[in-house]
């Protein structure tokens, strides 16, 4: 299988389209015949990253690279950055605003879920410079 690149814009305007990039990626992976449990792990990684970009950064961009050995998901935004990465990695820690929590988000599970569902997680972030999250799921 040659390397396949999937690119998605994450619209940060409203929550009604939130999750669309993740759903589209999931369908694409299924069409490629990727094993279901791998698809599920990638889906969780992608959805959490997508929602973080929507909630905290007004949207962003996602790229998924599928190669025979691994799936690499990169989610990048131009938001405020993560002030305390160590805290954000703890389950239950959230800086989501109340209006977002009312929708069922802000459980403080985003980054922990990404870590659990990926084999490698890398976070590049700086205050005022946005966030780039790279996750690798090995096949």
């Amino acid at each position: 299988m040659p390397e396949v690149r999937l690119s998605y814009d994450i619209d940060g305007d409203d929550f009604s389209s939130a999750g669309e990039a993740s759903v589209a990626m999931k369908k694409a992976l299924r069409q490629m015949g990727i094993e279901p449990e791998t698809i599920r792990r990638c889906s969780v990684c992608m959805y959490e990253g997508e929602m973080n970009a929507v909630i905290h950064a007004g949207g962003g961009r996602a790229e998924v690279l599928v190669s025979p050995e691994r799936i690499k998901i990169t989610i990048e935004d131009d938001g405020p950055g993560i002030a305390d990465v160590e805290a954000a990695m703890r389950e239950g820690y959230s800086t989501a605003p109340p209006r977002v929590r009312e929708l069922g988000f802000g459980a403080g599970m985003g980054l922990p879920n990404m870590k659990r569902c990926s084999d490698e997680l890398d976070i590049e972030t700086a205050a005022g410079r946005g966030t780039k999250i790279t996750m690798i799921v090995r096949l």
Partner: protein
Amino acid sequence: MTNAEAARRLGLDCLCPGEEREVSGGYAGDLLSWVMGRAGRDCAWITIMSNVNVAAVAVMAEASMVILAEGVKPDPELLRRAELEGIALYSSPLNAYELSWRLHEALL
């Protein structure tokens, strides 16, 4: 047991029949990330959340069906997305505990 069969045995109201899927367990929860990270595949997901994001989480978690507990009404956008994605969406006046108990009995 299929999702339609589970709905019949639990006395659920059908909002969107969705695709036929096997139900092999259940999960109750309202924090979306928590549900997505923990709910098992092919589960019946019981929740009081009714916004459109429920649809995406149901797809991501590969839930077989979504049951809105305590008579919660779905947002129109959730209903639309459920129809689009083939998600089986049901409602019930019962609470999550009562629904879980009935689901467990149906799965025995």
